[in-house]
C-alpha cells in the first residue's frame, strides 16, 4: 500500500501542488490525471523518492521513503518498476541486454536463466522477435513495450507508468492499455498510471486522482467520475472528447 500524506512540492518559487493526500491500495490500478504541466510526472517521481518534496510523506507499507538511508531506499526502489515516457532504454546496448540489465546486476541467475526470463518478459509484451534489435530500430510503441518488459523483469510489487500511451496511434495505445490490465491481473501488481488519455483511464484504472489548480482536486472510484460534482473534472473529461456512458 502506498499512502501519500500532505505532500507539497515547488520548484523555486513555482508551486507545483500542495497538501496532496490519497492512498493506493494493493492490487489496484490508480490513474493520476490532469492537464499538461500540472505535476503528474513530478508526483510519480515522489513515489520512489526520485524527487523529494518540500513537505509531506510517502509511506510504502508504513515506511516513509524520504526518511530512508540511500542504501535502504535502493532496496525499496527495487520493489518498483517504472515505464518512463520515452521508454528510457539504454541506447548503447541491445533490446535483449536492456531487459536483462537488472537481472545481471541484482540476481545470481545463470546465462540460461537470464535468457529464458528475458524471452518470457518480451513475449508478455508481444515482442518475442525483437530481442536482438538495436534500440534505435524500435518504434515508439515498441520502445514502451521493451521498457515495460524491463520494468517487470524483477517482478516488482508496484508498477508506475508515465504517460504510457502518449504519442502512440489509437491501436498501439489499445495494445498498451491491454498490457497494463494484463500486468495487473496476471502479476498481481499495484499500478499507478500517469495519463491525460481518458480512454486509457477508463480501460485500466480502478481509482482516479485528479490534479488541478495546484492540489488534488478529486479522488475516487473510476466509475464514480461521471457522478462527480467537481466541475473542473467534468470539464476535463469533456475536453478529452470522451463520452462517459
Amino acid at each position, binding site marked *: 500500500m502506498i499512502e501519500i500524506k500532505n505532500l507539497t512540492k515547488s520548484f523555486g518559487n513555482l508551486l507545483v501542488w500542495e497538501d496532496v493526500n490519497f492512498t493506493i491500495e494493493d492490487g489496484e490500478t490508480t490513474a493520476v490525471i490532469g492537464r499538461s504541466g500540472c505535476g503528474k510526472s513530478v508526483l510519480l517521481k515522489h513515489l520512489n523518492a*526520485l524527487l523529494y518534496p518540500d513537505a509531506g510523506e510517502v509511506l510504502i507499507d508504513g515506511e516513509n521513503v524520504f526518511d530512508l538511508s540511500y542504501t535502504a531506499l535502493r532496496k525499496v526502489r*527495487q520493489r518498483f518498476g517504472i515505464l*518512463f*515516457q520515452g521508454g528510457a532504454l539504454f541506447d548503447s546496448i541491445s533490446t535483449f541486454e536492456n531487459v536483462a540489465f537488472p537481472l545481471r546486476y541484482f540476481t545470481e541467475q545463470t546465462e540460461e536463466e537470464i535468457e529464458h526470463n528475458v524471452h518470457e518478459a518480451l513475449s508478455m509484451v508481444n515482442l518475442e522477435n525483437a530481442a536482438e534489435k538495436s534500440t534505435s530500430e524500435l518504434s515508439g510503441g515498441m520502445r514502451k513495450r521493451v521498457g515495460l518488459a524491463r520494468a517487470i523483469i524483477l517482478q516488482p510489487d508496484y508498477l508506475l507508468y508515465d504517460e504510457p500511451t502518449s504519442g502512440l496511434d489509437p491501436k498501439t495505445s489499445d495494445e498498451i492499455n491491454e498490457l497494463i490490465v494484463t500486468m495487473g491481473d496476471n502479476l498481481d501488481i499495484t499500478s499507478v498510471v500517469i495519463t491525460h488519455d481518458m480512454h486509457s483511464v477508463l480501460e485500466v484504472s480502478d481509482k482516479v486522482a485528479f490534479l488541478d489548480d495546484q492540489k488534488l482536486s478529486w479522488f475516487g472510484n473510476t466509475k464514480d467520475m461521471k457522478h462527480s460534482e467537481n466541475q473542473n473534472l467534468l470539464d476535463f473529461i469533456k475536453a478529452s472528447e470522451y463520452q462517459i456512458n
Partner: protein
Amino acid sequence: MNTSFPGAAGLRQFGHYAQLLYQALRSSTELSTYRKNLFQEFVKVGYESIPIIFLVGIFTGAVLTLQTAYQLDTDIYPSTIIGSIVAQSIVIELAAVISALVLAGKVGARISTELGTMRVSEQIDALESMGFNSVSFLVVPRILAGILMFPVLYTTAAIFGIIGGVTAGALDGILPAAEFMEGARAFFFESDIIFGLIKSVVFGFVITSISCFKGYYAFGGAEGVGNATTQATVLSCIFVLLADFTLAAILL
C-alpha cells in the same frame, strides 16, 4: 537566504560539484557496480585517444624543434641545446598540457554529451529507479579512467614528441638525431617526468570530473545537452590551465 550577490550561482555550482565528488568518493567502493564500465572507459579514454595523442606528440615536437632552431640560429650555443630545450619542454609542459586541452575536447565532450543525453532521456532516472547507484555506475568509472589513463597518454605524447623533434631536426638538416638525443640526455631529470605525471593525473581528474558534473546535471533537452557539453569543454580547459599554473608554482 539571499542568493543574489555576485558569484552566488558559481558558488552553488561548486557546491553541487563538491557534492557529486563526495558521492563518487563514497560509492567508489562499489566495484561490482562499475567494474564493467571501468574497462569500457579505459578503452574509450585511453586506447581510443592514442591516435590523436600520437599526432599531438609528433607535431608538437617537430614544430618546437623547428622554432627553437630558428630562435637559436647563432654560433653562440652548441646545436645539442636544441635537443635539451625541446625534450625538457615536452616532458615538463607540452606533453601534459597540449594533450589535456585536446582531450578536454575529445574525452570531456564525449562524457558530458553521454551523461547529458542519459539525463534528459530519463536513463539516469531509470537506473536510480531500478535501485542502482547512478553515481557509482556512471561517474566513478569515468573519473577513475581519467586519473589512470591520462598518465599513459602523457607518456605516449612525450615519447612521440621527442621522436617528432628528432625526426624534424634530422629531416630539416638542423641537427643529427645523435646530437639531439645527447642534448636531451644532458638535461634529463627524473623529477621532470614525475612532475609531468602528476600534472597528467590532475588534468585527468579535472577534465573527467567537470565533464561528468556538467553532463550528470544537464537539463532542457537537446539544447541543454549542447550547453552542458560546451560548458564542460570550456571549464575543463580553463581549470587545466589554472591547475597547470598552480602545480608549477608549488612543485617547481
